[in-house]
């Protein structure tokens, strides 16, 4: 062939065949490596879906070892929050195919933002989130930015930004931003280890939710649940009464008990049990609320027990309030001897057929309800059965009396009326 020695031709062809075989082997080996890396990446994703973190990490490391210069295989093995992430991502960014560079650049910027430093400027939804992350890392709390329409962010960046936003809002005590952050965490990671806490906190901050609906959830959270409720009370003061009612009565502070009472009390909790507990740990503000509530419910015994335990000047005020509530003018006079407007007196009597009616009250407006009324008409004692009382209104029934008669009325020993009445 062409004057060449056949053996030489054979050797040349053999050499070419060997080179081609070597190239084919290299291509084949590369394909096998690529196939193994893809399988490892798939294992990584499946392990993550199964919640097996260690297995996911091992698969990611295996994929990265097989294809160290391929973004899809190498990125899962890089923890963006790790200290060496920047260095690894820089190396990967230089090594990857230009087609894959954008995702590595985005991951590098994300990693930089997580570590509080400034990375490359990234466009789109990821860029917006990374910029927000960087602001959060500086201690700022801007409102969560709207993402560009039809531009989906990376799941990890969205999830991490939502969590950091919620954490920053929690620290700052910003209710609206906290609800926004928690809501996003709950939707992006509903299986989060603290998901019940998220639900309780989010429901507590939402004015449309009745706290009684998530009382059971608070119970299951134990001490953590109470801490959440207490934080929610601070963040949502207008719901403080209802939220405080979620705290078990024996674990409430006096302030919390006061709030619960101010809101009408917790469901199923009696005033008696609240008074018993308050007597064990006296607190003037709590006493004030419980005392007033006892009087409103006409539970004078409870009010007296609180007054006995209270200290001056609160105790004196409470005793006056009890006497006033009972219409106990004599006690009021004893308690406030300097007052001249506590002497019972009557309005001008009004005469009807066989009846004499008048109002009995003090100038201060207290209608005496305690004490016995004694009346004499025309020199004869009016039987108690013929003295009718409705609050301050008193009616004497004197069916036998005629003409002008002498009438005198006493409250216990105090003369409240004496005069002539024409029937």
């Amino acid at each position, binding site marked *: 062939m062409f004057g060449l020695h056949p053996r030489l031709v054979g050797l040349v062809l053999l050499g070419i065949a060997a080179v081609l075989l070597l190239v084919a082997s290299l291509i084949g080996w590369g394909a096998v490596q690529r196939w193994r890396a893809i399988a490892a990446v*798939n294992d990584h*994703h*499946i*392990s993550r*879906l*199964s*919640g*097996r973190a260690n297995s996911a990490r091992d698969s990611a490391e295996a994929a990265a070892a097989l294809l160290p210069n391929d973004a899809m295989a190498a990125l899962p093995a890089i923890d963006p929050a790790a200290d060496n992430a920047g260095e690894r991502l820089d190396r990967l960014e230089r090594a990857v195919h230009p087609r894959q560079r954008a995702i590595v650049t985005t991951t590098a910027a994300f990693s930089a933002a997580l570590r509080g430093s400034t990375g490359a400027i990234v466009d789109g*939804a990821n860029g917006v989130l990374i910029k927000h992350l960087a602001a959060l890392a500086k201690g700022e709390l801007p409102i969560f930015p709207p*993402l560009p*329409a*039809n*531009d*989906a*962010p*990376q*799941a990890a960046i*969205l*999830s991490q930004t*939502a969590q950091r936003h919620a954490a920053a809002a929690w620290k700052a005590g910003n209710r609206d931003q906290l609800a926004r952050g*928690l*809501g*996003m965490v*709950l*939707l*992006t*990671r*509903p*299986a989060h280890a603290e*998901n*019940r806490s998220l*639900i309780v906190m*989010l*429901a507590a901050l*939402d004015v*449309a*939710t009745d706290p009684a*609906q*998530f009382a*059971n*959830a608070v119970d*299951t959270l134990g001490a953590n649940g109470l801490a959440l409720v207490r934080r929610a009370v601070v963040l949502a003061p207008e719901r403080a009464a209802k939220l405080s009612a979620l705290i078990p009565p024996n674990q409430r502070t006096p302030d919390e008990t006061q709030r619960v009472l101010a809101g009408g009390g917790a469901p199923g909790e009696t005033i008696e049990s609240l008074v018993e507990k308050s007597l064990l740990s006296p607190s003037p503000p709590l006493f004030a609320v419980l005392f007033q509530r006892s009087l409103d419910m006409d539970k004078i015994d409870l009010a007296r027990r609180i007054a006995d335990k209270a200290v001056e000047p609160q105790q004196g005020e409470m005793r006056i309030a009890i006497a006033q509530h009972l219409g106990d003018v004599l006690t009021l006079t004893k308690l406030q001897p300097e007052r001249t407007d506590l002497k019972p007196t009557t309005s001008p009597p009004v005469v009807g057929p066989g009846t004499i009616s008048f109002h009995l009250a003090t100038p201060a407006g207290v209608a005496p309800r305690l004490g016995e009324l004694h009346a004499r008409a025309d020199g004869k004692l009016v039987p108690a059965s013929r003295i009718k009382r409705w609050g301050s209104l008193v009616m004497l029934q004197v069916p036998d009396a005629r003409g002008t008669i002498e009438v005198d009325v006493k409250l216990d020993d105090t003369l409240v009326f004496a005069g002539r009445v024409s029937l």
Partner: protein
Amino acid sequence: MEFLKQMVIYAILITVLWAAIVYLPRFRSLTVPAGNNEITGTEELKSYPLDITVTVQRLRQGDVVTYRLGDETDDIVHLAWVAGLPGDRIAVDAASKLVVNEKPFTKVERLYAQATGTTLPPCGPITVPDDHLFLVNTEGKNDSIGRGPLPAIALRGRVGGL
């Protein structure tokens, strides 16, 4: 002439092979196991067409899909409606209803947060991440309400006839 005839035969064979590779996977079916009521409208033990070639980009809101969670085998069947595609905005409103791009997703009347026994409080919105789907079913456990946006790798196929 003989050469042309051979070329035609080869072309037909290649076309048949290509059609088999492309279309045969679309003629697979999915049998709904007994006791599965993850979405309304399915009948137990009935087979439905299953297109395993479908990708996230070809799905539409309201499609019924089946998916696997983690390393589950094929005999475990999860069904759900596609509520949100990448870039869609998802939220839960004050009535505990799912809202997608400001419009209510009426397939599910009410969503429940599992384990707590309480209704899901209003939350969101979030933007469905790239290469993820927001899937919901009537149980609210093994879907996006229980697990968050699910990655495309979880997708087994689109279920037809529903």
